């Protein structure tokens, strides 16, 4: 599996994503600058966590205006896999690649802690190595992860099996405990928790490895 990590100004989990990808795939991820207009030939594009543009105005709003977004949309339209983690998820909702919006945490505070998640669907290139209904622990680290969508959208997400991860103990007020969702074509995943921070037993556990293993199996 070949992958690319997008670097926006003040992305800060770009290195973490690249390290995890290299560890899992044995191949270096291409680091792609937001001003570039083309993506290298890759199977997976990762929009990493961080504070693109300082999270000023609205998280992900300015990153969504970056030049590279055109190429990412084209990649997604062709069925290429896109993974948005944390700030990356926010960029994906801002861009319309995923429905809904991420609002300020209901508790109004930034929250960084391991959270327990239910894997709701194993039918996807992102989760096929997990068991449906399995519980995993990923850390969250965000101030604006409170997922919002209108009821119709939420019903559709539920009905189409597009809610991939749900919080067991909702840390941010997200509608229906949603932690991560797929697009309709099932090739774009956005989630607030950080799978790339759980690939090493020394630094938080290994529950995220299966997400990358799923992608490797599906995309190689």
């Amino acid at each position, binding site marked *: 599996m070949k992958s690319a990590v997008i670097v926006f100004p003040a992305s800060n989990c770009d290195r*973490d994503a690249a390290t995890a990808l290299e560890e899992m795939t044995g191949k270096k991820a291409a680091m792609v600058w937001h001003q570039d207009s083309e993506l290298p030939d890759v199977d997976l594009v990762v929009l990493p966590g961080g504070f693109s543009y300082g999270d000023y105005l609205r998280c992900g709003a300015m990153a969504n205006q970056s030049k590279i977004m055109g190429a990412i949309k084209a990649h997604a339209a062709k069925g290429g896999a896109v993974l948005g983690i944390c700030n990356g998820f926010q960029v994906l909702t801002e861009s319309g690649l995923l429905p809904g919006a991420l609002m300020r945490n209901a508790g109004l505070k930034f929250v960084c802690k391991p959270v327990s998640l239910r894997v709701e669907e194993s039918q996807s290139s992102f989760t096929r190595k997990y068991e449906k209904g399995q519980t995993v622990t990923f850390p969250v680290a965000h101030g604006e992860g409170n997922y919002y969508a209108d009821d119709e959208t939420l019903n559709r997400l539920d009905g189409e099996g597009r809610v991939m991860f749900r919080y067991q103990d909702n840390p941010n007020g997200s509608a229906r405990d949603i932690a991560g969702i797929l697009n309709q074509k099932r090739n774009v995943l956005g989630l607030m928790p950080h799978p790339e921070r759980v690939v090493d037993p020394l630094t938080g556990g290994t529950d995220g490895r299966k997400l990358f293993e799923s992608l490797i199996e599906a995309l190689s």
Partner: protein
Amino acid sequence: MTKITPELIREHGLSDEEYARIKGLLGRDANLVELGVFSVMWSEHCSYKSTRAHLKKLPTKAPWVIQGPGENAGVIDIGDGDACIFKMESHNHPSFIEPYQGAATGVGGIMRDVFTMGARPIAMMNALRFGEPEHPKTRHLVSGVVSGIGGYGNCMGVPTVGGEVNFHRSYNGNILVNAMCVGLARTDKIFLSAAKGAGNPVVYVGSKTGRDGIHGATMASAEFNEDSEEKRPTVQVGDPFTEKLLLEACLELMATDAIIAIQDMGAAGLTSSSAEMADKGGSGIELDLDKVPQREENMTAYEMLLSERQERMLAVLKPGREAEAEKIFRKWELDFAVIGVTTNTNRFIARHKGEIVADIPVTSLSDAAPVYERPFVKRAPAAGQPAYDSKKPVLDSLAKILAAPDMASRRWIWEQYDHSVMNDTVQPPGGDAAVVRVHGTRKALAITTDVTPRYCRPDPFEGGKQAVAEAWRNLTAVGATPLAVTDNLNYGNPQKPEIMWEIVAGIDGIGEACRALSFPVIGGNCSLYNETNGEGILPTPAIGGVGLIKDVTRQAGIGFKRDGDVIILIGETKGHLGQSVYLREIEGREEGGAPPVDLATEKKHGDFVRGVIEQGRVDTVHDLSDGGLLVAVAEMAIKGNIGADIGQASLADAIPFFFGEDQARYLIAAPFAEAEKIVAEARAAYIPVTELGKTGGSEIILNDKDRVALAKLRAAHEDWFPRFMGREEIPLTN
């Protein structure tokens, strides 16, 4: 031209004698710009005029020290060509006025000190002191400071991995916000601030200069008060986004060999960065202020030289490398301007609109700054064991202590900090020291900040020693070899002899401990005049310590890990209750002397404990400090979610045994066979060692009869902070 009047001199915080000295150095009267330059360079903050003579006594050398005090941060060698660069700094006063921005810019400032030397910051710590919880301002300050630290550090993508927090009425009007940054570089890629050589371009990068943050004292003079409806704030607004770009751009430039010297613009902004670089390089510097990127119109020379706008750096490049550097900064959408040149005249010269507005010999801003040997008087230290009611039930007191403001879990705070970004955090907040892996290696750094201010008031010397010993012990307890210290000396008004004594004795105590423990001081910061209405803060010399773990798989944490481990106490228990948490929380008195620290014993016990961790024989260790033995047992049990069954092993009375704060002690939990060996080895080395009991169950059981559920202790420990902060304190953000 403004006449230099005695009022103006005073408004600039200079004494008449100091101004006379300035006139002597210049050979004439100063102009207003020059007066401003002298006032910031000769301020306590920049010149250390009250402490410099005493700081000289600190040990600063060791074979592993690459750079001691005198640069933006200290540097140590951690093997394999890796260097660790770190420093701690205060942002006390701004944080009291505007807690969010004050704390945020404190974080930003200390990060710049570290990355200006070529390091990528990898961990942040913060040592905080607030007034008593009941004080009407406390919650507001806690809330603002914590969200400010998180707001800046989280955006930078540097994990905030620990710190400390105390509440005490002496901080009601003077909170302390000390932030520490630790970074990594290669030993052959360390950047210093000496602007050696003449004819080299001086470049300004980062944020544009605005009028914000110009020294408060000068605000009174009408000339700088054009828009009278709004008094110029002296508080800065932090811009972590720009700082993150600045970090990446600087590291990118540092990967080339274009830089001769580089320095962040911190306190006293452009003035101090340029003057210090010229001073250290033995050169001169000429600045053309018209070239300085400006955010506001019609800025005066005075304002540009003294603005403390954050997120800016000054670098001296090799001639001809400007375009290459500019390209990098433009890529990161940052301002870049060549604003001057180094010279061989040893003069600091600033031009504005074609005129020379300041012309000062560089050394008169540094070496010639006044140094004061301020008088001090000693207070007699308190001594003797304070009285206490020996009938109070021990476990009730334990629950109360675990829920005391100074002892309760700090989870409410550190869950607001991203402590796992960068994916190298091996021990997040909540242990003795944070452990952060050196990226891509098997090594790890252990980091801690410590001081026990309540010990420092009755006995500043022992208190200073204790702060160092506790930092050393915390690093040891995770299995690290303590390597070096950065300090942050927070005190009251040095012009009061009794406060000056606190400072002198504190530095002496720190020096003695650092020498005995081979734990050199490689940097630090002084914050004096922390007083309100004539009442000083508790002396608070915070110690930031860094240690090295050679093999990150061999380290220890505080949580119990298995049922049936034997709990071993290393060190002697005499039951010192003076200034103890027990006395304050249960008896309601702050009384007695600080616990004495025997440095040889500290070293012996610590080396022994570290040895068994390094050998991979032990993974559960906690040092004993605030609250004493029983509190440590409870913390280990709560963290591991495994109970303990222990007995009172010595002393006639339970209270001093369980709550005394004797130093040089550790708890170890190990499986039976290993524990037996450790006990035997300790005895053979004449180290006091006691088998206290065993881990297991879901209760803490004392002497086979008194028991308390872990769940109850956990609730007491975890609930205090969130309950105290409640929901009312809302960080108002956009």
